[in-house]
């Protein structure tokens, strides 16, 4: 049977709109050094490396072999996993499976992106099918805007409802020295910000960022020796169901709902709002922050605005969401999903400093990308059975 796996160390670079002082490899190395330092390990201790980013953002083919000086892959096993925006989470999953297989004990997962090096939207558009979808696709913002539009139509949600999410995540980022955007805003600021693609306004939307994140996964034979409070992986799953933009219905965030329905029974979750102490969710727009929590079963469909307005998802609430500031505050796309994993794990490890949810024992991290795809990874302070 497989091994139990825990996260024992994480590292992230200070996110910014343009890290001009380092090239991609050097930026990766910064995050790796931080993770090794936190786990008190050296490059020699690492058994395998997994790395991911979205190729066309940096224009480098075979990033795994290119990165070895910075990623630590020199004369080690290294492999590249890439699945679009979900890359950060799927890299974490790959590391998890490397360890769970029993073949590797300490595995380094790296997600990174230097979005400043290219035209982000131009590259994102190439994700879509070239003959039918690509000519009319409006990039990530367009895709999220149509979903938001539909949600408002179906449930009567307002732009103010969404603005509350933007305020929450951006307020949370003030506690996170690594976040790219740390701005003290209120609902009025959001409502007055320029419209990008109706109903998504400037302050409703995530930035594009340069940053790297590294996470060390260890098997049960090593985790407790390395880390006093390892973040045990309870389970992970993903659903990348759709290929064409017109495929999904917008009844809810369907893939996230499917992930939750697949994962929760396996890990004994019946009341996610109660049973999870904290969540780090990949919410690329404030509207997603209102709608997609419904798919996670935190409330019924259409109940998102009320839950957000109640403060339950703010620091100090029943289940804080995105103490790190989330994707609205930092979006180094290949790393973004891994940052959610790292931040969820930091909460369990008790290393989240000013953004720590006191006594957090269970955490949920989500990933998003591609054509409305979703991923989940859940953590616990308690070693699974």
């Amino acid at each position, binding site marked *: 049977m497989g091994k139990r796996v825990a996260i024992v160390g994480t590292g992230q670079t200070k996110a910014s709109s343009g890290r001009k002082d380092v090239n991609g490899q050097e930026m990766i190395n910064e995050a790796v050094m931080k993770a090794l330092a936190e786990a008190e390990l050296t490059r020699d201790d690492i058994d395998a490396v997994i790395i991911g980013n979205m190729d066309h953002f940096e224009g480098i083919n075979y990033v*795994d072999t290119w990165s070895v000086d910075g990623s630590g892959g*020199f004369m*080690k096993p290294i*492999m590249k996993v890439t699945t679009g925006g979900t890359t950060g989470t799927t890299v974490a999953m790959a590391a998890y*499976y490397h360890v769970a297989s029993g073949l590797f004990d300490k595995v380094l997962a790296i997600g990174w992106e230097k979005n400043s090096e290219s035209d982000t939207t131009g590259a*994102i558009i190439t994700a879509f099918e070239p003959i039918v979808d690509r000519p009319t696709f409006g990039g990530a913002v367009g895709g999220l805007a149509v979903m938001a539009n539909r949600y408002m139509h179906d449930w009567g949600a307002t732009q103010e409802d969404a603005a509350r999410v933007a305020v929450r995540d951006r307020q949370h980022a003030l506690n996170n020295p690594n976040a790219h955007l740390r701005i003290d805003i209120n609902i009025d600021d959001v409502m007055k910000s320029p419209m990008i693609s109706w109903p998504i306004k400037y302050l409703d939307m995530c930035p594009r960022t340069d940053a790297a994140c590294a996470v060390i996964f260890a098997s049960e034979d090593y985790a407790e020796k390395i880390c006093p409070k390892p973040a045990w992986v309870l389970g992970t799953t993903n659903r990348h169901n759709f*290929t064409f933009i017109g495929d999904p219905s917008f009844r809810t965030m369907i893939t996230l709902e499917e992930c939750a329905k697949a994962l929760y029974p396996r890990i004994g979750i019946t009341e996610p709002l109660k049973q999870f102490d904290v969540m780090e969710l990949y919410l690329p727009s404030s509207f997603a922050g209102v709608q997609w929590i419904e798919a996670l079963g935190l409330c019924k469909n259409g109940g998102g605005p009320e839950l957000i307005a109640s403060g339950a998802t703010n620091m100090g609430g029943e289940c804080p969401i995105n103490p790190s500031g989330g994707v609205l505050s930092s979006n180094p796309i290949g790393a973004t999903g891994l940052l959610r994993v790292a931040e969820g794990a930091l909460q369990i490890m008790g290393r989240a400093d000013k953004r720590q949810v006191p006594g957090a024992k269970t955490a949920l991290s989500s990933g998003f990308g591609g054509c409305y795809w979703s991923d989940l990874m859940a953590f616990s302070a308690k070693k699974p059975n």
Partner: protein
Amino acid sequence: MDKVGIVGVGQTKYERKKVGETFFDMIYEVTVKALDDAGLTIDDIDNVITVSNDFWDGRTISSMAVQDACGSRHKDISTVEGDGVYGAFYGAMRVLSGSFGTTLVVAHNKCSQSRMNQITNAMFDPIYTRALGLDAITSSAMQARAYMDAFGITAEQFARVSVKNHKNAKNNPLAQIALDLTVEDVLKSRLLADPLRLLDASPITDGAAAVIWANEAAARKAKKAPVWMKGVGHMSDAYHLGDRDLARSPALVGAAGKAYAMAGIDDPLKQLDVAEIYDAFSYMELMWYEGLGFCPEGGGGKLMDAGVTQMGGDLPVNPSGGCLSANAVLVAGLARLIECVLQVRGEAAGRQVKDCSTALAHGINGPCGQSHCVMVMGK
């Protein structure tokens, strides 16, 4: 290690230009073939790993193109961007983790749809190397030269690999280029970049392949006896060409060492019955003999001359025809693995190695075989 084995395989015919088929079509074809081969249905597949490359596909998130074709909707799915053997390894790890009973691994590439030298030029570092205009051919040519200089390997010895593999391809109905060649034919073929000639190089190929992994319990449902993974290892050398000793492959020695240790192999020439190794260029096969421990360092040419790796020799290498006969990049490693499975099963009619119970599959990633993945398969 728990047991994990391959219970189903499928490949398209490898062709220069599959104009009428999309990535979707090719992946659907091999998924159906692999399921039929295994006697399973798509519902028996617990999760999927796809293998593709954003540059070759002209599409960021290249996995998106084939998800429906491999039945991944409502299943866990991920993507390895690298040679098919690495993807296959990840697929096997997902079964070994205990989370899944079966994994479908699919790989595709239509090299005909893009410009090989621009795509491979993009492997090189944009700051220090890319502007020089290197590609897979010119970089590999420099490696071939370094190898010849280090050990006195000759162009004739390279050519013998091409003669062998193109001839072996005659027995593989799926291979793209099957030819009866002489060493002279190879030496007379068009010069690409010295010392490499046209017939030293693998072709431009379109194709796809699929394998289905299963643990012991899930394998009971399959039609055929599984071919088990006995050992596996992967490792990468340094990146900048000038950082490496291009005449040697320490990363392959490392990867093979891990695979052999797991599989209990200390005399590969004796204990392996067949090997399918990544001959993107003819000289590489000789270099990889050495890295895999089939002969001492520098002995690749001699091993070739002695006939050991010919069909009928002590250790036939590339009965399928290898990459020299068909090289849909990324798919080619999976094709090597599939041939191993067919050989161990006794299903390689026309090119069957006698009493084949242990086989080695090998794939590479990055410029000049920077990274290697070795998998030992057996009964």
